[in-house]
């Protein structure tokens, strides 16, 4: 998205190749010629970027002694332009010859021998330039193969600066520049470091922009990259985060595999991708895919974890070691088990060899019959309260819809939930209470219209990389970015104001800011009067948070709080983006309430560049929630405990006896299982063993279940506790819709066939439903979608036929013609009275504060390269190669005090468990804090986390618990 000339109504008239052409003022000659159907060749120019005019291929004769580069030269009235005189064409031919003379030979060109779309070679063909130019050949600048995913051939580089602009202006990662001078100039990463050792985040935008063989994708899993024309292009959507970037997979049908991925234009993502989207799709081709239904062997009961890791033998926690498996003597090679701690090298995933012998292969018939029978028995014996289901925000809308429908109509319980509980449940609780809707009030792209954007509790460059690229880009175009986060991660480098608040002090911070906004008279009185309620109570509460007090609590200097307040209060349009740093606290709902109040008192909702945007985590967490995969809501957030709603869905679904009360949430289901409440569970694509807090408790709960069916694509840690494991299809193997963080509903298209007997999830759900006697007859996801839309008013008008290649935002009054609604609540909010309900919050400390024994605050979260429990990303060659091991991030001074150097092994303990992992000395952490990503089972952060939950959202406090860190060489007794 190039920065374009200011909007102007003026035009200029000039002559191009004898034709009179009228162009908008500020248009370049190249643009004017293109509009007139005149093709001027380019190498350095790409309409996505602002022009640089360095390759000179687009030169034209404007009557001056020297030619002008048409890509950068603005049109002028009366200009006489000749685009193709013999002199001009000769110049282009000579320039091509100059460049070709230093290129690798065509038959070895990294681009021509892969995607076969080298733009320089195309020009060489056009100008009849052969490999032998007669010009002396340069000395050769060499190749750099240090990146796992990108090959750099400096000889093939023509210094067009496209990669530089892609890296800077598009993705704003700021890694690539020019180094050296004159003929010795070359592109360089950081301080001219090997690409693989640089700060490159492997988004691949440079590869996507390179016209020659200088930057090319490396093959993944040895699938050769072949010419586009020989591959099958499947337009779909990235399976990872809530940003929902549109992409195209190029599929090698002969090999039945994806060869490479490319960003695809869509109003939200603008063809951008991050490392996961561009390089992380090969997990589906992992040889570890489950391909046959599995039933637990008789002799593997009583149940318990099967691998040493999952049993907790890695945890160093003696009490847990003893749990569960003591009398399970025949379950596997004893030596291996016994030696679990040392017998297995650290890293990797579930040890199939250790776990699989406990299961036997079964037919689908047998497995499904068993599932239906056992669940029915438990339901018959224990009633609705004995059954629960975990769906997944990774599954499609159609699957989420069917899954909740199965649990609700088959078992008459609302005990159905998914990982939103661990994600934005508190945000959604606050949003429902405050504005009557859990979805974003505007899109992430609307940041371009914001004067101020607050990004808070969100490591966006890692978790929503493509969205963050728009934040960073907005800043370059003048938006003030305020970053509020305990970790000074990369967003801090791109912020105008960075507030490194102490963990868990968000309420105090925002109360302090609001105090100052009110004191300065920067509120929007008209908005408060006409569109909000309960302002007085809010004002009264924040009156007790003058910036000095907020400084005491948060550690952010009062003056900085005042600056934030002034910037926010004065902004014409202000927008807030937040992530798990806000929601994953016992005060998560209060945190989000403050953000809602921040926007409401300044009138920053319901207009362009303003609003509330909780950045959704999973690719379909918005959709799964919309579908009612939540214990307190039926589809479209219809209240489960509302008799009218119950009646409506009973009618719609042709059923009776829907559960009249709210069901249990993820964390409550685990607790219930421990107490013998929930006894049978259906787990579709969830892995609570790694994703839930306090793993040791989860382990006990899973072991206590009478019956567990796990439907997944890999043998997860959770599957070790299963009675039946059903091999599911990956995202890449099915059609369905997915709703991203912007409320954009997009079609995901089938790319590959499922391996072995693995089946599409919605069909499996339907088969179980029918064995329960529900009598479903869905023929396709399209049919499910139609039923869904009929019960989800927000999705009204959407259909498989009008979603198109780029999807549609909901609500959407006219999907045939409109992309949908960007800005919500322009007139009123979705609450009963249409007003925003302000809810004041008092700051409360986190539940477990650091003390002498556990002096550090642990923060958990994700890495750019990995996804949640790692079951996908750790099976991706590229992602695993880039980020192979668990690390604890520690401030340099803390590390020094602990006697830990970068790479040393540390032991991190909380009151709940202990893990060992390498130290990463990081200036991005604050002193006294540490950060551990939760992807790594061999050092599972959630062994340490606390299972305290927010009273409203029921979300666990993943972002705060007390831990101790020590060098691992100092052994703890026992």
């Amino acid at each position: 998205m190039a920065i374009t000339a200011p909007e102007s109504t003026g035009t200029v008239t000039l002559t191009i190749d004898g034709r009179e052409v009228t162009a908008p003022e500020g248009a370049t000659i190249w643009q004017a010629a293109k509009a007139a159907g005149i093709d001027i060749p380019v190498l350095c120019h790409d309409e996505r970027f602002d022009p640089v005019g360095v390759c000179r291929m687009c030169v034209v004769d404007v009557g001056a002694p020297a030619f002008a580069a048409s890509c950068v030269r603005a049109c002028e009235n009366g200009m006489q332009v000749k685009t193709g005189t013999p002199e001009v064409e000769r110049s282009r031919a000579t320039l091509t010859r100059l460049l070709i003379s230093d290129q690798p030979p065509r038959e070895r060109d990294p681009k021509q021998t892969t995607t076969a779309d080298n733009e320089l070679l195309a020009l060489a063909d056009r100008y009849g330039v052969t490999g032998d130019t007669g010009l002396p050949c340069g000395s050769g600048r060499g190749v750099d193969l240090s990146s796992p995913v990108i090959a750099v051939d400096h000889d093939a580089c023509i210094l067009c600066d496209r990669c530089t602009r892609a890296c800077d202006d598009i993705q704003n990662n700021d890694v690539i520049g020019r180094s050296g001078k004159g003929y010795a100039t070359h592109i360089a990463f950081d301080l001219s470091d090997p690409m693989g050792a640089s700060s490159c985040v492997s988004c691949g935008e440079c590869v996507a922009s390179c016209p020659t063989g200088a930057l090319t994708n490396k093959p993944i899993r040895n699938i050769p990259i072949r010419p586009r024309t020989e591959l099958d292009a499947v337009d779909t959507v990235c399976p990872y985060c809530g940003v929902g970037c549109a992409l195209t997979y190029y599929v090698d049908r002969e090999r039945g595999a994806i060869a490479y991925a490319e960003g695809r234009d869509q109003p939200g993502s603008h063809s951008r991708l991050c490392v996961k989207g561009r390089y992380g799709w090969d997990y589906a081709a992992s040889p570890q895919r489950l391909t046959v239904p599995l039933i637990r062997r008789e002799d593997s009961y009583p149940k318990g974890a099967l691998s040493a890791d999952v049993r907790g033998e890695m945890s160093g926690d003696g009490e847990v070691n003893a749990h569960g498996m003591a009398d399970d003597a025949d379950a596997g090679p004893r030596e291996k088990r016994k030696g679990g701690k040392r017998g297995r090298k650290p890293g990797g995933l579930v040890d199939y060899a250790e776990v699989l012998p406990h299961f036997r292969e079964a037919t689908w018939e047998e497995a499904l019959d068993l599932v239906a029978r056992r669940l029915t028995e438990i339901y018959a014996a224990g009633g609705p309260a004995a059954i629960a289901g975990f769906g997944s925000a990774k599954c499609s809308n159609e699957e989420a819809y069917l899954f909740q429908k199965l649990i609700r109509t088959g078992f008459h319980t609302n005990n159905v939930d998914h990982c939103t509980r661990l994600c934005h449940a508190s945000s959604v609780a606050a949003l429902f209470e405050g504005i009557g809707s859990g979805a974003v009030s505007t899109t992430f792209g609307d940041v371009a219209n914001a004067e101020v954007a607050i990004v808070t509790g969100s490591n966006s460059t890692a978790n929503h990389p493509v969205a963050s690229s728009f934040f960073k880009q907005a800043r370059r175009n003048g938006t003030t970015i305020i970053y509020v986060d305990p970790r000074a991660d990369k967003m801090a480098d791109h912020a105008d104001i960075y507030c490194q608040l102490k963990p868990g002090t968000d309420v105090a911070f925002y109360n302090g800011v609001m105090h100052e906004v009110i004191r300065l008279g920067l509120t929007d009185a008209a908005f408060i009067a006409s569109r909000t309620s309960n302002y007085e109570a809010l004002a009264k509460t924040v009156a007790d948070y003058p910036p000095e007090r907020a400084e005491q609590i948060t550690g952010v200097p009062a003056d900085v709080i005042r600056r934030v307040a002034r910037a926010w209060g004065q902004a014409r349009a202000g927008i807030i983006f937040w992530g798990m740093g806000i929601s994953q606290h016992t005060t998560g709902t209060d945190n989000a309430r403050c953000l809602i109040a921040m926007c409401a008192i300044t009138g920053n909702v319901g207009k362009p560049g303003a609003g509330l945007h909780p950045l959704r985590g999973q690719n379909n967490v918005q959709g799964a929630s919309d579908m009612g995969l939540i214990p307190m809501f039926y589809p479209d957030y219809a209240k489960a405990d509302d008799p009218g709603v119950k009646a409506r869905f009973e009618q719609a679904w042709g059923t009776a006896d829907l559960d009249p009360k709210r069901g249990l949430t993820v964390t409550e289901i685990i607790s219930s299982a421990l107490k013998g409440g929930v006894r049978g569970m259906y787990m579709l694509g969830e892995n609570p063993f790694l994703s839930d807090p306090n793993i040791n408790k989860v382990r006990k709960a899973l072991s206590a279940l009478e019956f567990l069916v796990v439907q997944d694509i890999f043998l997860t840690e959770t599957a070790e506790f299963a009675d039946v494991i059903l091999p599911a299809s990956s995202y890449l193997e099915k059609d369905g819709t997915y709703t991203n963080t912007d409320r954009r509903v997009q079609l995901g298209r089938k790319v590959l066939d499922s391996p072995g007997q693995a089946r599409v999830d919605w069909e499996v759900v339907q088969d179980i439903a029918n064995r329960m006697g529900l009598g479903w007859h869905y023929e396709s996801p399209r049919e499910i979608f139609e039923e869904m839309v009929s019960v989800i008013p927000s999705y009204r008008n959407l259909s498989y036929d009008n979603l198109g290649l780029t999807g549609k935002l909901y609500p959407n009054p006219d999907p045939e013609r409109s992309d949908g609604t960007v800005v919500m609540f322009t007139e009123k909010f979705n609450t009963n009275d249409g007003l925003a309900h302000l809810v004041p919050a008092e700051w409360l400390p986190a539940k477990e504060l650091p003390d002498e024994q556990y002096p550090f605050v642990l923060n958990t979260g994700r890495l750019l390269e990995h996804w949640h429990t790692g079951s996908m990303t750790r099976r991706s060659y590229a992602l695993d190669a880039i980020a192979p091991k668990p690390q604890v991030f520690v401030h340099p001074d803390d590390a020094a005090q602990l006697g830990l150097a970068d790479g040393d092994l540390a032991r991190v303990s909380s009151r709940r468990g202990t893990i060992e992992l390498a130290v990463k000395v990081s200036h991005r952490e604050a002193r006294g804090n540490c950060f551990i990503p939760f992807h790594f089972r061999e050092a599972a952060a959630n062994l340490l986390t606390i299972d305290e939950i927010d009273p409203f959202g029921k979300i666990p406090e993943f972002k705060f618990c007390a831990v101790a860190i020590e060098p691992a060489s100092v052994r703890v007794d026992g």
Partner: protein
Amino acid sequence: MAKAPARAPGVEARAGKFPGPSLIPALNAIQERVGWLPREELVALSRDVRRPLYEIEGLVSFYPHFRTEPPRKAELRVCHDLSCWLRGADERIARLRQRYGTDAEVEFVEGSCLGRCDIAPACTVNEVPVSLDEADAAVAAARDQAFGSHNGHSGHNGDNGDNSKNGHHGQHSPAPAASAITWPNDPYPSAGDRYAVLRAVLAGELGTADIIAALKDAGLRGMGGAGFPAGRKWDLVAAQEATPKYVICNADESEPGTFKDREILATQPYLVLEGLLLGMLAIGAEEGWVFIRHEYGPEEQVIRREIEWLRAAGLVGPDAAGSGKRLSVEVFTSPGGYILGEESALIECMEGHRGEPRNKPPFPGTYGLHGQPTLMNSVETFAHVPVIAARGAHWWIAQGHGDHAGLKFFAVSGHVERPGVYCVPMGTTVRELLDLAGGVAGGRPLSAIQPGGASSNFIGPGQLDVELDFAALQAAGSMLGSGALVVMAEGTDLLAAAVNVLRFFRDESCGKCVPCRVGSSKAHTILTERGPGEQVGELAEVLRRTSICGLGQVALGPVMSVLRLTGRDHEG
């Protein structure tokens, strides 16, 4: 708070350039403190100022001033460009290389023009200019750490404060005393009379419109090479509505054979600065800069001292001479490289970017430093302003010969008896100037002359009566250029001389655009390895017509002129 404006039409993108304050002062500060730029320091800088590493790499690798290795005790730098080459630089370099090439304490660097063509072959030891005969002694002294300073310039770029602390550029080279020579463009009979025009303007006795009118009437043209009419340029920038505006004195002459500005800076700093300040008042700028080439340490001292004097005298400051006008003048020391003499490259450098010329238009007059209207003239142009303002356009016009107007400084070097700087009436013939400089060295016959610096075409002995002025030299197939007359006696291999010039351009190419970056290199290889051929002509054309800036456009001009002069043009 308003959002930043979108990119102006016709302005290229900032590929690889980061918005924000320049990092060059920060890099200078590290180099001053540590002596060089260790990696850890650069990483820490990047982190502390939250700017990308690539940006630092781009600067450090582009500007020769920055060192990425610890300095040795002595750095001996010898020029190999045309004027020095004509005076036996190659042999001398070979000898010095033999002596110092493997010396662990001495860093021997063969490089581009040092602006000391009058003492060719020129060299510096630890950045202090010495004649080649003094080089061994200077190196010996440097071994005892008694010579020069590796820290060089003291990093005042962008520093608006105290200039008193600088002690750079060597105790062995005291700064030339200002006005040791009185040149004819100096209207002031004694030191006490100086700045009379500036005082008159500040007192409201003289309007800047009158000065602009005088410049126009006098027909003063830019003396940096391009010859754009100065009065028109001032008018154009004065008419711009955008503020702030800037005025920059381009004191970055770096073309082989060109050192006249050095002499003007050393002897007439008050005229240069008065011209600059008048320019600021004329266009409505409060901030003026002297962008001086790195190698002019002694002259920089003179300018800095003169600025100090202006501050002390109250002519520069928040309320210049009680006029209510703020005038500030600062010195920006170039981090090195001939290309920075190109006006837009100079601006890029001042903004903290790699010194790569911009696509033009827009020109600095409308879109200059930080995108603001900027008046830029060279040292000599500014130095002529006071006399024109003081004595009027008629006086100036009368200084020229015949139909030619005004005075012109020339640097004369090469095979000539008395190399040096001469100020002569415009329209003086080449022969007259040559005679003034004592004629061809040793009385030898003349082979060729490059009349306007390295970018100008060679002319032969048959053209000695051509008058030195813009139009006349252009008509003769060359140009007045930077006012550098390089004399080549009979026996000179003219093609080798022209290839020497090409090497300079190749070495000094910024690398931004394809024709110059690749073409100058290929052409040099062809000419040194194969000799002239058809391809050289093709390359000359593509460089001339498609390069972004003058450097690339002229790089092969001298070679082509020699081929024509020697009748070998059918080969090339």
